[in-house]
């Protein structure tokens, strides 16, 4: 307040007061981050948190409703559901993270390159390749890749990256096209900046906002695809516990013991939701012009 008053007194000294509000946390982002943090934390410290070995079978106590000993009950083989949920996120979260990071960076760089060279052969080849990928449902491509290779960590990452980079490339190209037509890119050329510098300093940073929003959306989406692949039996392989395969295992007992479906399903839902909310909140936080609106 005092600095503003000084600025106003400098009459004839013209214009701008500091209008950017101070950085503050958006409640949605805080909520999303806390929930997501709890889930990641639980996965990291699964061995400390679990009372049981997630693969230990106790046939005598199979198909139990939640009790004090087993807060989420036990499954058809007598394994503790809570322990399996603690462990079940580890693989999925890691695979999702790795594949999203790789596909977002590759897709963004390719898309930005294409936008700067719009109409060129490179652009044409890239865009038609994307069309080709998008004309098949991604789950089919992923099925094919994992089917050809052996199911495992890296084959899943590969499958998800190959099906996952296209939205980023499209988005980066679309946003890049708009940026390339901006005067500040022309001005940068007029100051003698190289193509590389223009790409790194102007085009990529300006595409980052929409790309980041996409990253958070796709992270949740990727988690769902992994769950789907595990459900189909080609994702994370037993005995490694996984939320998606827990759903698949629970299917025959849906009516006898609905908690077997309910808990892994809820966890997948909450994880996806928390990531998306975090993304939305961060978007608002890092856009100084948006900071005034909440």
């Amino acid at each position, binding site marked *: 307040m005092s600095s503003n008053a000084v600025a106003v007194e400098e009459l004839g000294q013209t214009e701008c007061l500091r209008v950017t509000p101070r950085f503050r946390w958006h409640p949605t982002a805080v909520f999303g981050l806390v929930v997501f943090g709890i889930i990641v934390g639980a996965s990291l410290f699964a061995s400390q948190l679990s009372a049981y070995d997630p693969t230990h079978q106790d046939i005598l106590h199979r198909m139990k409703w939640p009790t004090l000993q087993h807060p989420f009950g036990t499954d058809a083989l007598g394994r503790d559901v809570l322990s399996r949920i603690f462990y079940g996120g580890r693989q999925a979260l890691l695979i999702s993270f790795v594949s999203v990071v790789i596909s977002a960076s590759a897709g963004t760089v390719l898309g930005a390159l294409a936008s700067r060279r719009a109409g060129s052969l490179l652009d044409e080849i890239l865009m038609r390749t994307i069309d080709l990928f998008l004309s098949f449902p991604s789950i089919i491509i992923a099925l094919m890749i994992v089917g050809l290779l052996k199911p495992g960590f890296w084959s899943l990452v590969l499958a998800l990256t190959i099906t996952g980079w296209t939205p980023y490339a499209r988005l980066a190209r679309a946003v890049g096209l708009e940026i390339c037509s901006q005067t500040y890119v*022309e001005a940068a050329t007029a100051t*003698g900046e190289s193509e590389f510098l223009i790409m790194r300093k102007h085009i990529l940073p300006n595409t980052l906002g929409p790309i980041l929003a996409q990253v958070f959306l796709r992270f949740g989406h990727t988690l769902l695809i992994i769950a789907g692949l595990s459900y189909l039996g080609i994702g994370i392989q037993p005995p490694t516990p996984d939320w998606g395969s827990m759903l698949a295992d629970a299917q025959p007992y849906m009516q006898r013991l609905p908690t077997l479906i309910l808990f892994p399903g809820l966890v997948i839902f909450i994880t996806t939701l928390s990531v998306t909310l975090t993304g939305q909140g961060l978007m608002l936080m890092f856009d100084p012009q948006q900071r005034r609106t909440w």
Partner: protein
Amino acid sequence: MISKPKSTNPSLLEIKNLKTYFYSREGVVKAVDGVDFHVKVGEIFGLVGESGCGKSVTSLSILRLVNRPGKVVGGTIQFQGRDLLALSDAEMKQVRGDRISMIFQQSLPSLDPVYPVGDQIVEALLVHNKMNKRQAWDRAVELLNLVGISDPARRARCYPFEFSGGMAQRVMIAIALSCEPDLLIADEPTTALDVTIQAQILELMLELRARLGMAIILITHDLGVVAETADWVAVMYAGRVVEESSVGTLFEEPLHPYTRGLISSIPVLEQDRERLSIIPGVVCDGIDMPAGCKFAPRCQTRVEHSLAICSRREPDLIETSPGHKVRCWLYEDANQPAAVSQTLSGAPA
């Protein structure tokens, strides 16, 4: 107006027969077709004309920034003894921003919204100079101070959206001046600003010219701006220079009917007129150019003098008096334009 002895100043930029064409689907648009002029060291050179006459394309051609489908197809641009059109891309990058820099009409969109303005000046400095970030930042603050931004150390950390158009234009000037260029091309630098700010920016440019000694090409459609700032003027029409002279001569004794039209269309306060005088019609579209003088279809003088040659052959740019050139059939034979100018002076009733 600071008038300098023109003849003693060496030439900084010499453009000869510059041709920049745009290859569109409908045909070849000759946006710039045989432009000649030269700019002397430390001179403010006004380039005047209405929208679409090729002013901006000329300036972009100098920096070789004309994008597809446009192309510089002919002519030479001698700058400090080198032909810019013959330089390699890498050599041209050395010239851009370092020896010749440019400011644009739209000042706010010329700044990247994701960086504080100080960083953008630093960036321009680092492209052409060997210095570390700390030195560059200090220099950036210094430059902001030079262009009259108060509290520059704090403002350097502001983002472009926190700036008004006038302040953003000052920042653009700071960026353009960062490497102390020999030539500054200002493409309608004040068009997007309101009049008071406009005057401040022009004042600033005059002051900086006096201090740093650079030449300025001032592109504008505003004759008022030219009268206040420029030393030498070229009037462009349909991709050609139609008249060129010192600023004083142009306003006292305009020769070309188009220049007269431009000058008489400026509203004058004392005159009580119902309507402003206008030049009928618009600039021809560049594809279907008239065969003779490009201004002939809109030229009332031609009709008054019943000159038939105008629509058949294009006149050359001739020198009627030392330093005063005009492209018009009216002056092709008579070297004494006074007789004609008397019959022409004054707006049509």
